[in-house]
């Protein structure tokens, strides 16, 4: 690393920046106090239901969290602050025209004038209004979906440039990281389930067919980026399942939730539908819908079975589930010959599957997953309505 002297001096100076000893010591004391006081342990049941999770979180962080404020607080502070009447009526006009801009901005793509409004204003605003932690998680997934759709629309219009791709990628990375880093009391199952949903969607994008697009280098890079993030998400799911249920088994993390065929098949809905004909939101919903088909018929049977024959029931039902999923999916999709099934997710060793707590965990996960998908559908329809 050759630096000329002026630059070297510059960075030396920069590196000399530090806290004063007293600052550092004071903050250490605060941290220690935080560790001692904020050590709130939730019981497994509370965690499972996600009940009171937000309350506990807020109790543990009373002041520092300026990002959360309720609509009530907002209105309260607004009406009771010194707002001149004229300005107030001006605000109404601003809000009115804002609504027009907002609905136009919903469909904006990177490079559009209104994209900034969409990403830096509307989305954070929406995020802040969502109070329910489960809805929040779903919204995070939705945001990534929106980015994925944007990239696709850009590609279809031949507008996927490096800088646009960069913008979208950074945003996705951020959301994925935030999901990964979410603290446990945000509702462990929700986090796992949402990441699983996300993983599938990403898989659909990354493994999708690209006929004319194969030549386009930006698109290839984009897909490999999605693939990278997908494996991040997959790793995170594994880690979390390991800590939460002691399941250290790739097959298990995939078994309930990720049917293999959808993973390895191109998803026509996402890749082939031109964005102009179909509202962006419906296209991406397709893989999730396909997914759900497999869950529905076998679930109740499984529950009954499991109750009757604990030990073998687990294996049996997991297999049933998987086979059902396979059959159902095969009818819908023609797996393309060149697509390779993901080896590392293939179920091989199910010895761990029988572990204590696994069954309960899986049931709960499944439940949460359906919940997430329901939330997502809600978010998608809302988006569509807004776009019109």
């Amino acid at each position, binding site marked *: 690393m050759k630096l000329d002297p002026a630059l070297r001096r510059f960075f030396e100076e920069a590196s000399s920046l530090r*806290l004063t000893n007293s600052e550092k010591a004071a*903050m250490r004391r*605060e941290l220690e106090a935080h*560790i001692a006081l904020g050590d709130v342990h939730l019981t497994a049941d509370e965690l499972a239901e996600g009940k009171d999770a937000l309350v506990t979180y807020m109790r543990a962080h009373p002041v520092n969290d300026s990002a959360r404020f309720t609509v009530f607080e907002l209105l309260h502070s607004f009406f009771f602050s010194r707002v*001149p009447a004229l300005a107030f009526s001006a605000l109404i006009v601003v809000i009115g025209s804002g609504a027009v801009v907002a609905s136009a901005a919903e469909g904006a793509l990177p490079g559009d004038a209104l994209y900034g409004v969409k990403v830096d204003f509307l989305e954070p605003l929406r995020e802040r209004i969502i109070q329910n932690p489960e809805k929040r998680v779903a919204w995070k997934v939705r945001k990534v979906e929106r980015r994925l759709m944007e990239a696709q629309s850009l590609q279809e219009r031949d507008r996927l440039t490096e800088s646009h791709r960069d913008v979208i990628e950074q945003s996705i990375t951020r959301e994925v990281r935030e999901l990964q880093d979410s603290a446990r009391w945000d509702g462990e199952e929700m986090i796992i389930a949402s990441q699983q949903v996300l993983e599938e969607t990403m898989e659909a994008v990354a493994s999708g067919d690209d006929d004319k697009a194969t030549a386009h280098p930006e698109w290839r890079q984009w897909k490999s980026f999605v693939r990278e993030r997908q494996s991040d998400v997959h790793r995170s799911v594994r880690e979390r399942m390991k800590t939460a249920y002691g399941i250290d088994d790739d097959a298990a993390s995939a078994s309930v939730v990720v049917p293999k065929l959808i993973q390895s098949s191109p998803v026509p809905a996402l890749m082939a539908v031109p964005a102009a004909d179909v509202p962006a939101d419906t296209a991406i919903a397709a893989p999730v819908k396909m997914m759900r088909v497999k869950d529905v018929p076998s679930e109740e049977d499984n529950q009954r079975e499991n109750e009757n024959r604990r030990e073998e029931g687990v294996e049996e039902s997991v297999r049933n589930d998987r086979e059902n999923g396979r059959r159902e999916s095969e009818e819908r999709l023609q797996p393309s010959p060149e697509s390779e099934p993901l080896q590392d997710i293939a179920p091989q060793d199910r010895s761990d599957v029988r572990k204590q707590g696994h069954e309960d965990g899986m049931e709960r996960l499944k439940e949460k997953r359906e919940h997430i998908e329901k939330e997502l559908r809600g978010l998608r329809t809302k988006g569509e309505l807004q776009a019109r």
Partner: protein
Amino acid sequence: MKTATEQSFLKAYDDYADAIFRHIALRLGDREQARELMQDTYMKVWQYLSGGKTVENLRAFLYRTANNLIVDTARRRKLRTVESLEQMHEDHGFDPPAEEDTSAITHIDAERVMPILQSIDEPLRDVLVMRYVDGFPPKEIAKLLGISANVVSVRIHRGMEALRSRLPHEA
């Protein structure tokens, strides 16, 4: 009585607090805010650890968490330049804003460095700080920021050009 996790966490504070603080301060150009965010970073990481998670590389994890917070803060700042409701709430009405508050920047330790660094565009500045102050190799920077190593190298190069043109020429 301290658990092993607590001890290793507090050791991570002793070891890296300055570095994390410096990282944030140089990227945001605001000493006070950097102090707060540094603390937030540690609190967040503690939350994660106290949830029973283990982290392989605590240092990298701290930087990643700090990075997320910086991104959030930067986004919120941008948001404020568009007249947001939150801003109005803070200003107590529509009074025109007072002169921009630069007091935070003036009592900075490395006084000469901050303004120069802040005059460089954010993406370039970020990689310069990570490369030459935090000492991360481009590959790690790429991982931290979620961009490709190529982009990082390009930005380092451009950042150095920009920086060179802003430094007074010395004999």
